[in-house]
């Protein structure tokens, strides 16, 4: 049990997909404008990661090595389609806010990266916890980035105004501001890591 817990936890801090592996930056830059978007994107990616990791580790022995990437993509695309249809049916507002970035989870490097680097070499249970941990780590990173961006860039958190008369930092609402912020956060986490080491 402890091993599974470790597989789960490593995705959150030690191998956080956004801040340590620096994967999946494109959706991070694009959708982290508001916290709601961040949570929605994070949960969608977690669902896809979980499903694709389980299926790929189940069929890892029957996939020919040479065409493994197309096989992974087919599996991932299946889950993305499920995810997209569910989202369209039950929360059309979020679906419109995330737009093209939901179907683009197919080519999200976190999902493909975990399939290639982990799920095709490990057991089903391990892959399940790996996918879950990575998904939660991605979601937490998105929540952190989008909370800062929404607060500074629009003056709100989850749509509520916190400080009256606050002048929003316009640039943080744009992808260039997100890039700047992610760079600063990456540097900050590296400082913390180096200090502990």
């Amino acid at each position, binding site marked *: 049990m402890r091993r599974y817990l470790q597989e789960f936890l490593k995705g959150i801090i030690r191998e956080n997909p956004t801040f340590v592996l620096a994967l999946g930056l494109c959706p991070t830059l694009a959708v982290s404008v508001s916290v709601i978007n961040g949570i929605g994107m994070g949960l969608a990616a977690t669902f896809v990661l979980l499903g694709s990791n389980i299926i790929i580790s189940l069929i890892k022995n029957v996939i020919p090595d040479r065409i493994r990437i197309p096989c992974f993509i087919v599996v991932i695309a299946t889950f993305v389609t499920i995810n997209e249809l569910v989202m369209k049916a039950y929360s059309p507002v979020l679906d419109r806010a995330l737009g093209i970035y939901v179907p683009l989870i197919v080519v999200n490097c976190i999902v493909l990266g975990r399939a290639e680097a982990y799920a095709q070499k490990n057991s089903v249970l391990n892959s399940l916890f790996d996918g879950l941990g990575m998904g939660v780590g991605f979601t937490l990173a998105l929540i952190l980035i989008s909370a800062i961006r929404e607060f500074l860039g629009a003056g709100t958190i989850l749509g509520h105004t916190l400080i009256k008369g606050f002048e929003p930092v316009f640039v943080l609402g744009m992808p*260039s501001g997100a890039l700047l912020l992610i760079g600063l956060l990456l540097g900050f986490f590296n400082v913390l890591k180096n200090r502990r080491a």
Partner: protein
Amino acid sequence: MIVSTSPHLHKKESVSQIMWLVVVSLIPTGIAGVFIFGLSALWVILLGIISALITEGVLGLFTKRKVTLLDGSAFLTGLLLAYNLPPKVPFWLPIIGSFFAIAIGKQVFGGLGQNIFNPALVGRVFLMASWPKYMTIFSKPLNYDAITSATPLALLKEGRVLENISYLDLFLGKRGGCIGEVCILALLLGALFLLYKGYISWHIPITYIVTTGVLTYIFGQKGLFSGDWLFHILSGGLILGAFFMATDYVTSPLTRKGQIIFGIGCGLLTAIIRLWGGYPEGVSYAILIMNGATPVIDRFTKNRIYGTK
């Protein structure tokens, strides 16, 4: 990277001495700015400088690096940033701008001599992208009988006629604009002082200004070779940028040939942004883009070492 070959001459001037002399050369501009726009301009300048110094000191202590508070570079960054702001901005704008300029524009890269981009311009562009509504409100000159509050270049962009502004008005600073860019006379005084002392060379400023002038002359509003080149040279931040910000030692090329390429590039970009871009003024963006190209220019204009190919 070593660009020049030995023997190297030793000069008595230190970095901090040069920095303080550049500050001195900018004093007439500041006086002119305060005279034209009133005391609010002085507050903007003071807040910019103080915030830059505090940021430099605190970050120096925090990173346990040698504290470079008094070498004049932070002072100069704060001063230049304030000169690039409109005279009536909210008090927190120069404070945040200076903080950003020093913290992100300079210290993140490792302090003086390590930064890729001109820190003052990084601060200005950040403010421009974050609070555009404050960065584009220009108040009327106080002690002059001013005609308009928008900058001449902004009016030109909107396609309005500019008959009311004479070249002399532009030269003396009778127009809306940033604190340090309006009075060309004061800027030229400071620039001549720096040229005379040899702290800046003519290569970047002259090629920069001439390129902008030639391009704006060729692509005039009424057809080819009809542009009002003198207007374009005298308005906007071109003189301030060309003499005081494009010539920054850290972020501009080292060799003469490189400096000429740098100046032409800046002029080209400025003219393109002014004539066809979305913004009325492009000096700060032009210099920042060419700052990014400086390492490449340096690599390709390295002086040949004797005895090598």
